[in-house]
Structures are given as C-alpha cells and as structure tokens.
C-alpha cells in the first residue's frame, strides 16, 4: 500500500552475492559433460556448483530428485548449474559460458505415451529410490504410485445400471504463476549456523530438509519467511532453498541471493499437475447412480514431489460428493518429461471435479434429466460413506443439496439453461458440485503462543505464513472473539522464523484456520487460566470464581469487581512494591486426530477430518458463429461451516474462482514435439486480466464443523474447484458438442464442432 511491505527479494545485505541458474534446454537428455573453464574465468565469479558436487536425491514422498541435474536432465527448465558472482549480471553472463554437451533421448511427452507398453523410462532406478512415505511404484514403468479404490462390487453396480456413459477427459500441466517469483537468501555462518530467508509456504519443511540433506543439526538451521507474494501451493515445495544453500556453502558461506526469473519460475520450479482421465458412470432410468469406474492418470512430470499425494486424495475422493455404492478407481501418478508438479490450490479436487462433473452432465443428458435435478437425486449425506468408506456425519460433511438449491436460484436456472439473444449470440449456464478434504499427514501439528504487552495488547506467534489468504487476520479474530477484545489489540507476528515461532505443518490445504485456530483457542484457554490465577489472589477469591473478557479479569458473581488484564499479565504489583504472578505465556497446540492410513488394495481408511462441499455455476455469452465467448456470471455457494470474516471470505472465494476460470479458459502448457514448453513467459502464458472476469455471486451455507474453531471450515481454496467443470458444462451446452478438455479456448470448440461435422458427413 505504501511500499513498506517487504517480501523476500526486497531485502539486501552488505556483501550479498548473487546466484543465477543454468537450466536445461532439453526435456530429456544425457549430460555427457559440463565444461566450466570459460565460466570460471568470467569477472566476479565466486563459485559454480553442479549436480556432481551435491549428489543427494531429494523428495518428500520419494527421493527421486537431484538438487541439480545429475547425469541426465528430465525436463525443459531443470536446473543444471548455479553460478555465484558479485553481481547478478555477472552471474548471468557466466552462466552463458558454461558448456554442456548432451546426448538427446526420446521424450515422454504425455501420460498416454508414458503408459505405453515398453515405454521410454524417465527414471531407470525407480525401484531403488528411498521412499519417505510408502508408495507403490511399478518396475520398468513410469508409474510412481498407484491408488486403488474398491468399494462395493462394481459388477453388481453395472448390473443395476440401465443407462451408462463413458468418456475421456484431460488437461495439460500448467503453472501457479504467483506474482512474486520464488526467491531465497542463504548463508552459512562460521559457527555452523545456517540462515535461510525464503518465500515459502513451508518454512518448517525447509528447515527439516536442509538439515536432512546436508547433514546439519536442525537446531543450527533457522528459516525466515516474510510476506509471501502468492503461493497457491507452489511455494510449499522445497527446491531453490537447497540450491541456494549449496551455492552459499561453495562460496565460503557468504550470503547468496537466488531469485527465479519468470521463465525459470514457470518451468524450472514445480507447477500444476496435468491429468488424463476416463470415467464410466451408470444409473437407473430414474437417475439413481449405481456405479462409477474411474481412471485418473496424473501427469506428475519429471519428479514426484507432491504428485503421489495428489493422486491419492483424488482417488480417495474420486466420485465427488455423490452417493455411489459401487466404486472402482485406479489413480496413477505418472512420470513424464514435463516440468514436475507440486501442490496446487484445491489439491487434486479441481482436477477430479472436472471429469466427474462433466460426466454427470453427460449422463444427465443421456437420461434426459435436468442436470441439477440429477445431482440432487444423488448428493451425498451424513450416514453415507465416501469412496474410501469413511462414514460421513453431520459434522464432517456439509450440505451439498442446500448449496445446489441456492446456486439454482442465484444463476436463475429456471429461466432455462440456454437463452437466445440474437441469431448468433446465446447465453448458457453450466453447473458443478464439489467436495474437498485435505490430506494431511496423520501427525500434522501446529502451535500458538500468546504473550502480553504492558498495555494489555497481545502478541500472537504461530508458524503460519501470510500469503494473501488473510489467515492471520482470521486467527486474530478467533482470538479477539474468545477474549472479547477488539482485534486491534492483537498483534500477529507476520514474519515466520522457525527458531522462535511454534511449528506449523505447512501453510497449505486451507487447514491453517482449523489447525492453528484450534491451537490459538487452546493458547487462549491457557492464558486465561494463568490470568485467573493471579487475579484470584488480587480479588481474594478462587481462580474458578474469575473470568476474563474485555481486557478485564472479573468476579463472575460481580463483574464490577475486576482487575485490568494489563495489570496482571506481566505480574501484579501491590502498592508497596510486592509483586505476584509473573509474565503470562499462553501455549496451545493441535494435532490431527483419528486419521488412519489407507489400505493399499481397497483404499479403505480415514484420510481426512472433514469434507467441505459446495456448488458452482458459470454463465457465458457464446457466439455460435465464431465460437468466441464472454464470461458473464460465476456463482459459488459453499458450506463454510461458519463465516468468520465475510469480506475476506468473499475475496478468497472470488479470487479462487478467478484462478479457476483463468485455468479453464486459457492456462496449460503448450509443448512442442520435443517436450519444450513454448509458453514460459507471461507474454504467452496468459491469465485472466481486469475486466475479463465475470460478475461474481457468492453465498455461504453454514453447517458448523463441530471440532473447528467456531465451526469454521477452510475456504481458501474451494472457489477454484468446480469452475472448470461448470464452464465446460456451460460451453458444451452452448456449442452442442461435448467439451472434455482444458483449456477451453475457442479453437478447441471449433475443432470439436468440426469433428462433429465431419463425423456426420
């Protein structure tokens, strides 16, 4: 607002050295040699590091990724070398002088190709990699992980069905494209301390991994994270931090800055996963779903990173929010020679929702039932089970039907799905339901610490990164509400420092409010208890007779008798100078409960604590001659449990809707036949701009989640989930042909129309 907000790359330091990356110009090639002799002679160069210098393999689920390419490159943009120099331009110039010779390999340029029999292998040593989490790779293949879901009996479901549909769906990998590119500063002090400043969603993960891969005690590693300029899941991956540390170490421990260029951020660092899917659904003539048979083949790119977990959650929630008794799903995490994928807003759910909700529309069409009516017949409810056979309760699932009914009104469904505007122009609507649960490790934990200032205001310290989701504001609000004081009296520490802030798993999965919110409430209880203890002495009563609210500790029986919190929070001083109490430190923590691991053969288990649900709609104005279209309305209704901050909640939802529409309308890498990403700049990698957005209609249903702070469910990601499907449903109706691929550019619609025309000839 004033330019005072500081992000990682805004800091500088005396003697700061600059690092620059050399990245791969090929998607799959053997590195025959790397000649550094010319580069080393360049002015200002302090150090150059290549893969051979740090031959450790990394990964949070499976250790398959070298810090810098080792022996071969597996995707276009893969970092090969890092040059450290006195200035950025010197580092860049020296990079140009590194001479790498390659032997080109054939490229695995799609999931389809990766799954051919006798495929080209992206990883020859797949079976020998260290697994951090248990995954199921397949020998001599590109399959890194496979999730099987077997619920009920698919043959019975098939027998019961009277109408079935089957179709293929797909979308290419794409990018998070946060406006701030990833940036790191790393330093290794002479006493062995390591300081990393990074634009990360997972500073605690960075600390753990630096310690693990470089064999440094965790207590020597401190990770600092200031404001982060957007993450959307992309900054939860740990990548540049490892390179920057290696660069600093090679340069004698000096402080080194490494910032991605936009080009490297788009292809070199991990992006958004791609998918090829096949869905078969069956229903009775009356429109009751009887079975789902689903193949999700995820394009994880060259390395697994979070790809295996995304594959898993997509498999476990494969049907979307519908009651289906017989479910068969194989969800595969597949290697290709594309940039690798990591977590992305919605974490597998936007991905699974696109095929499922398109399939729902296709089946509704076959059944000749209105798409909303068809969904309403099948929405999942408390008492039903998920594909992973978790029993749903009133608390752990929201009300899908209610969301859908509300969407129906907001989009004015009853005027008709198609409205003619002129001989060329029509308006059409499409809808989508969705659900989402987060996949957290069964032992994910978070903490919160409260301390008090002399004026009674409170400092809240937690490990959440502020990334634009307003989480810290909501946490302050949760605390303010509990202590009945004004939010302005609460100071939330905006920067994260792993040395002083309590642990928080990762700022992802919309789970921060749930996890840290609960920790904050417990810290508040803890502080209240301590305040009551001191107050009871001052007020000459039992601690149980006292309560705290509105900055006072008062007698419950007579609130006029009180002592101000500011007078007891740091010890109470009698007029004669005697003091009692001592400084209050409120501590709270939270750990995920009752999550169980998943059965490998059936997918049975409890992967998540709750399922947030919602329904969405998109209305477009479509030109039947040119196939161009405009976004007119986009609707989201989600069951938020409880809306803590309406303006911020709306902003989160519309922001995510915008991202979903941007993804669905225009985002997706274009690869040439050699696996090179052609759109690696914002000049060609396009996002929605001002004025291209539709009018947003957002509403909330409130079915409280009993164990969440004030019943609030996460909502930072959800707006994105159903947008691609709702848009595709709207445009398929408009064009009169099934549109089962993203992005939905006019050319694709034209192509489908043309295909239809030649089919009927």
């Amino acid at each position, binding site marked *: *607002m004033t*330019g005072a907000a500081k992000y990682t790359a805004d800091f500088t330091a005396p003697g700061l050295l600059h690092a620059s990356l050399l990245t791969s110009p090929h998607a799959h090639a053997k590195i025959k040699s790397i000649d550094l002799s010319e580069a080393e002679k360049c002015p200002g160069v302090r150090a150059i590091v290549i893969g051979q210098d740090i031959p450790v393999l990394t990964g949070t689920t499976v250790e398959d990724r070298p810090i810098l390419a080792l022996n071969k490159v597996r995707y276009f943009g893969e970092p090969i070398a890092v040059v450290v120099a006195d200035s950025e331009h010197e580092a860049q110039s020296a990079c140009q002088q590194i001479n790498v010779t390659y032997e080109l390999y054939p490229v695995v340029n799609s999931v389809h190709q990766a799954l051919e029999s006798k495929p080209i292998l992206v990883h020859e040593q797949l079976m020998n990699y260290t697994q951090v989490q248990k995954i199921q790779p397949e020998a001599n293949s590109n399959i890194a992980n496979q999730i099987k879901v077997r619920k009920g009996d698919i043959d019975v479901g098939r027998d019961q069905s009277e109408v079935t549909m089957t179709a293929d769906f797909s979308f290419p990998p794409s990018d998070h494209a946060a*406006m*701030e590119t990833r940036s790191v500063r790393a330093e290794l002090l002479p006493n062995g301390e390591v300081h990393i400043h990074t634009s990360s969603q997972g500073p605690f993960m960075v600390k753990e991994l630096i310690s693990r891969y470089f064999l440094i005690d965790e207590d020597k590693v401190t990770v600092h994270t200031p404001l982060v300029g957007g993450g959307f899941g992309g900054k939860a991956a740990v990548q540049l931090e490892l390179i920057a540390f290696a660069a600093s170490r090679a340069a004698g421990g000096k402080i080194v800055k490494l910032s991605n260029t*936009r080009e490297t951020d788009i292809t070199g660092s991990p992006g958004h996963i791609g998918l090829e899917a096949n869905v078969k659904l069956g229903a009775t003539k009356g429109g009751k779903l009887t079975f789902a048979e689903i193949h999700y083949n995820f394009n994880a790119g060259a390395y697994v990173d979070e790809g295996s977990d995304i594959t898993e959650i997509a498999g476990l929630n494969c049907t979307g929010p519908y009651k289906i008794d017989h479910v068969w799903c194989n969800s595969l995490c597949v290697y290709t020679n594309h940039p690798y994928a990591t977590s992305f807003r919605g974490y597998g759910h936007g991905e699974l929702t696109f095929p499922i909700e398109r399939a729902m529309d296709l089946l509704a069409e076959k059944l000749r039932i209105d798409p909303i009516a068809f969904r309403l017949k099948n929405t999942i409810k408390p008492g039903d089970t998920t594909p992973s056979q978790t029993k749903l309760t009133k608390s752990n699932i929201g009300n899908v039907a209610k969301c859908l009914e509300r969407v129906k009104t907001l989009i004015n469904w009853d005027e008709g799905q198609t409205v003619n505007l002129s001989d060329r122009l029509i308006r059409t609507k499409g809808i989508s339901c969705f659900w989402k649960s987060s996949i957290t490790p069964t032992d994910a934990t978070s903490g919160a610490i409260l301390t008090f200032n002399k004026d009674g205001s409170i400092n809240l310290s937690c490990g959440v990164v502020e990334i634009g989701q307003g989480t810290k504001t909501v946490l302050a609000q949760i605390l303010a509400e509990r202590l009945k004081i004004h939010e302005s009296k609460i100071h939330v520490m905006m920067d994260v420092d792993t040395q002083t802030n309590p642990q928080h798993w990762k700022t992802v999965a919309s789970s921060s409010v749930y996890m840290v919110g609960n920790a904050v409430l417990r810290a508040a209880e803890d502080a209240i208890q301590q305040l009551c203890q001191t107050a009871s002495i001052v007020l000459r009563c039992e601690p149980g007779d006292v309560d705290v609210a509105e900055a006072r500790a008062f007698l419950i029986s007579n609130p006029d008798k009180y002592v101000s919190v500011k007078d007891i929070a740091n010890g109470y001083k009698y007029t004669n100078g005697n003091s009692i109490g001592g400084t209050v430190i409120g501590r709270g923590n939270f750990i995920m409960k009752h999550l169980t691991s998943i059965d490998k053969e059936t997918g049975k288990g409890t992967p998540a604590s709750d399922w947030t649900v919602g329904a969405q709609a998109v209305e477009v104005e479509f030109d039947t001659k040119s196939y161009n279209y405009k976004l007119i309305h986009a609707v989201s209704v989600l069951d938020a449990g409880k809306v803590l901050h309406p303006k911020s909640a709306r*902003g989160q939802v519309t922001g995510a809707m915008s*991202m979903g529409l941007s993804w669905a309308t225009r985002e997706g890498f274009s690869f040439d036949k050699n696996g090179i990403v052609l759109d690696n700049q*914002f000049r060609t990698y396009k*996002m929605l701009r*001002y004025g291209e957005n539709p009018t947003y209609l957002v509403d909330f249903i409130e079915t409280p989640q009993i164990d969440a702070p004030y019943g609030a469910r996460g909502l930072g990601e959800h707006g994105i989930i159903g947008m691609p499907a709702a848009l595709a449903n709207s445009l398929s109706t408009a064009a009169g042909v099934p549109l089962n691929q993203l992005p939905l550019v006019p050319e694709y619609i034209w192509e489908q129309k043309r295909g239809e025309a030649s089919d009927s000839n």
Partner: protein
Amino acid sequence: MKKTIDFTVNNEQKSVQIRSADTLLITLREQLGLTGAKPGCENGDCGACTVLVDDQPMKSCLMLTAETANRSITTIEGLHDTPIQKAFLEHWGFQCGYCTSGFIMNCHALANIHPDANAYEIENWLQSNICRCTGYEEIKEAIMSVLKTKEAGTSG
C-alpha cells in the same frame, strides 16, 4: 562501465551510479532501496513494476535508467494518503499485495489524467496489470470510488 545519472525521485534530487544496461526497476530497488516497484516478469507483461515518469505510468522494467536522466520519477513510496491508497484499503483491493503498488501507481495516474474515464478507458488502462490473487472485483470498486464517473462506470 558505470556512469552517473541525475534525476528526481519522489521529489528528491538523486544522483546514482549505474550501468547503462540497468533498467529503472533495478536502479530503484537496488540503489535507492525503493522496493515498492516489484519484479513480476521483467518483460513488460505484468505491471508489478509500474512507476510514474513525469506523471505518466511506465513499466520500470521496460525503461533504462539512462533514459530517465533529468526526469521526475514517482514510486509508491512517494504517495502518501492518496485517495487511491485509501480506496484499496477500504475495498480490500489486495490479498498478497505483490501486484498492489503497480496497480495503485497506474490507478493514481488514471485518476489524475482522466478523472472522468469511461468504462473502456478504465479497462484499457488496468489491463496492463495482472493480479493473481483477487478476482478484480475489489480493484474495480477501488478505482471506481476515486473516479468521477461512478455511475457510468459501475453499470458497465
């Protein structure tokens, strides 16, 4: 290789040592510590680096510092309590805030140069900037609140 450039930045006379190949964005951030202008692409595509040069919006990544000799630069650090800054706060025109200074500089120029901009002009100008976090709704509210053409614009 370095040379000296004199210019005015936020109403202060400045003299900096630069490489001729330095862009204004680099000079502002690295020599003058004015980090409000952000690099988002350094390719003219995103607008995060927008500043005012003689009161006109410019992408500081598309300009050499050498080109700005004797000219007057305004960055977000040079704006104080302007209507558009207040409007962005009031209307929640930002989330992560990374695009914000660029947007504000562009909006500020628009409000000064075309206080009665019509819907086309507003869109034409603001399409120069990308925001990845918001859905642009709040940014629209913010700019509309400082322009004179409220009624005409909101209906469009």
